[in-house]
């Protein structure tokens, strides 16, 4: 054992993280990178609110405002929310199903580095002649006309990071299908694992549409094709369809894991089994299914005609049914439970009314005839911030507090956590509630300023004040993280005391092989079941034996770096002579490292039985 756990210098730790294929370390990488991009997107949000605080403001120019607005949306969706969700999926899902790692550890690492380099590439646009400025949706009529390289950064950067997300999604699917511990049937899987499963399926089916759309955009902008140019026989609406065929499932990709995290929280802190587990599973799958039938409700005003509009309106409203099932199940889970108001639970309780408010405005927007009034107004801005912040960001904060001990072995300070919650909750509603009315009063979205005397002044100022509350909340969370890390008070297996699922049965943070012996699952909420029968831990499902582990690898980093280099070559191909060579060199790096990976035999290594027996915990534990 002594060879496995030793103190390492900074360089060694850095190298360890650059090469790691361990799902728990990749989760931490996702958390750090996603957290960084979250701060970046938050900074952009603050600039937006400062610019709009007073009429006729010139804090930023119109062009720069478009870039900030575009990068706020793009960063928050692709580079903050998704990776942070992937962080929790990576950290928790394999533990919840009793697996020692994901199915393809190498691909897991590759997925992270692709996302990371794609995100860095996209953000380098700030320093290389201007960021993308056509909105996060990058509608083709705007993006084809956009000057400079902003949109090229968008298309290439998202293409690279999208490939990483797709790899991650497939990896999770295979893991959940193939690597569940003995006795872990589908209907005994924790709700967060179910959410991960459905989300990964959505990623598998939705991301190819984005990939195709982005390739068409890349070809239109960089290689002279005319898919989206009406003057040349193309059709600009095709981009919108491709984007939303991806984009609508994307919002469910974000919110389903959020539902999963909240389902865990409600059960843990109400000390009750999740109410209506099977209907929760059904609702999750149904939301995933319906998520593919509704994309055109983003395009009611493009002139699809009354029949198409009616079909998509009805399909959209149907989604309220499974979502309603979930809401009631959470309420019934709390009903009669022994509720403790911990920080995660506060977020979860605040999530219900906030998200329902966003859902109700969603049904309003789903009605095609009404949508003609709301379209492109601040009402829409208020709606999607209510569902994404009130749903996803609340879940990310809640999940960070809930799973922090499992990921790092220390508890975040509860008092500071509650202050974060109060400030953020107040700030969130202050910022976005008033925006419903701004929209109804006629303020269009995506404008960089407005004139005095239109009745928008007070409301915009209120909204900006709210944004500062949220910024303060995030700063307090960062302080909390620093304090907790410096104190470094380690906690045990089940720091919340009421853990129900498998991850709470093993140490925090878990050893790198997760489970010494795979646990035997005897029902839903497997660990709770054992605790209620007076047992300390899970019963093992196998005798103690050698554990096969994968070797670390630097190749995923190099593969991703090659694409990063190639993207620069592709972009500057037309105006610099070095473009083509750089493109070729980048592709050679990528393909060369893939070739090395293919021909080099890497069978991993074994942790021997004797090393596992060494540890001094008494009795047999899973």
């Amino acid at each position, binding site marked *: 054992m002594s060879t496995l756990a030793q103190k390492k210098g900074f360089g060694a730790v850095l190298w360890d993280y650059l090469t790691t294929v361990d799902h728990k370390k990749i989760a931490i990488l996702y958390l750090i990178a996603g957290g960084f991009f979250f701060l970046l997107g938050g900074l952009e949000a603050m600039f937006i609110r400062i610019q709009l605080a007073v009429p006729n403001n010139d804090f930023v120019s119109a062009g720069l405002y478009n870039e900030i607005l575009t990068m706020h949306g793009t960063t928050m969706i692709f580079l903050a929310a998704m990776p942070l969700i992937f962080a929790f999926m990576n950290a928790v899902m394999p533990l919840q199903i009793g697996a020692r790692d994901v199915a393809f550890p190498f691909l897991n690492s590759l997925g992270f580095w692709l996302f990371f380099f794609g995100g860095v590439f996209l953000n380098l646009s700030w320093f290389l002649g201007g960021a993308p400025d056509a909105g996060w949706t990058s509608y083709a009529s705007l993006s084809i006309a956009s000057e400079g390289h902003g949109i090229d950064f968008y298309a290439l950067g998202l293409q690279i990071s999208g490939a990483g997300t797709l790899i991650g999604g497939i990896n999770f*699917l295979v893991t959940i299908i193939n690597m569940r511990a003995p006795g872990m049937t589908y209907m005994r899987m924790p709700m967060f694992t179910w959410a991960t499963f459905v989300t990964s*399926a959505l990623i598998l*089916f939705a991301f190819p549409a984005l990939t195709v759309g982005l390739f068409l955009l890349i070809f239109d902008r960089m290689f002279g094709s005319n898919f989206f140019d009406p003057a040349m026989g193309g059709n600009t609406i095709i981009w919108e*369809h491709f984007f939303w*065929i991806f984009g609508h499932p994307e919002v469910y990709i974000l919110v389903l894991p959020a539902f999963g995290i909240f389902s865990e929280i409600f059960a843990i802190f109400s000390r009750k089994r999740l109410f209506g587990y099977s209907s929760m599973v059904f609702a999750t799958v149904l939301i995933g299914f319906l998520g*593919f039938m509704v994309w055109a409700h983003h395009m009611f005003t493009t002139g699809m005609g009354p029949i198409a509009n009616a079909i998509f309106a009805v399909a959209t409203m149907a989604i309220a049914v499974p979502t309603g099932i979930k809401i009631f199940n959470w309420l019934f889970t709390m009903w009669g439970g022994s509720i403790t108001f911990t920080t995660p639970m506060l977020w979860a309780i605040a999530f219900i009314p906030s998200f329902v408010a966003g859902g109700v405005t969603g049904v309003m927007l789903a009605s095609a005839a009404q949508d003609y009034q709301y379209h492109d107004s601040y009402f829409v801005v208020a709606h999607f911030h209510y569902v994404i912040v009130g749903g996803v960001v609340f879940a990310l904060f809640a999940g960070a507090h809930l799973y922090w001990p499992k990921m790092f072995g220390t508890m975040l300070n509860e008092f500071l956590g509650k202050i974060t919650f109060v400030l953020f909750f107040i700030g969130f509603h202050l910022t976005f509630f008033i925006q419903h009315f701004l929209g109804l009063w006629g303020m269009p979205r995506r404008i960089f300023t407005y004139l005095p005397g239109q009745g928008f002044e007070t409301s915009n100022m209120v909204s900006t004040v709210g944004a500062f509350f949220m910024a303060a909340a995030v700063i307090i969370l960062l302080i909390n993280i620093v304090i907790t890390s410096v104190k470094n008070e380690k906690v045990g297996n089940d720091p919340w005391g009421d853990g129900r699922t498998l991850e709470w049965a093993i140490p925090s943070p878990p050893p790198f092989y997760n489970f010494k012996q795979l646990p035997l699952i005897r029902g839903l909420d497997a660990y709770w079941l054992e605790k209620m029968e007076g047992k300390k831990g899970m019963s093992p499902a196998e005798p103690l034996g050698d554990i096969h582990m994968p070797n670390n690898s630097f190749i995923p980093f190099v593969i991703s770096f090659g694409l990063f280099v190639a993207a620069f070559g592709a972009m500057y191909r037309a105006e610099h002579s070095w473009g083509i060579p750089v493109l070729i060199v980048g592709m050679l790096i990528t393909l060369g490292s893939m070739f090395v990976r293919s021909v080099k035999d890497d069978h991993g290594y074994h942790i021997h039985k004797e090393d596992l027996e060494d540890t001094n915990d008494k009795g047999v534990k899973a």
Partner: protein
Amino acid sequence: MANQQPNSGNPRVDIEYRRKKSAEEMRHQVITFALMIFLTIVAFVAAGYEGFSGWFIVPFILILALVQVIFQLYYFMHMSHKGHEAPSLFLYSGAFVGFITIIAFLTVIWW
């Protein structure tokens, strides 16, 4: 599993049963192969025959193609065997999503 070779040392493996299964499997493959060749010939004949209009030939060949894909998946790629529930679920879901997309493009954009 009938598609595995009976080479394990397990005395409980019923080699007779395996053999019977394999023979049955082989018969199915030969029949399917013959049918697929036949369907291909039918498709060529349909395309070559002057009397049919394009409105008949195109859907007809598409249907034949669909049947061939199903033969391919179920008899040659062993999707009819046990243990293929998850792959077939995802295959059908993917086909469904693709189908919805194409239908929407045909009816909403290009109509």
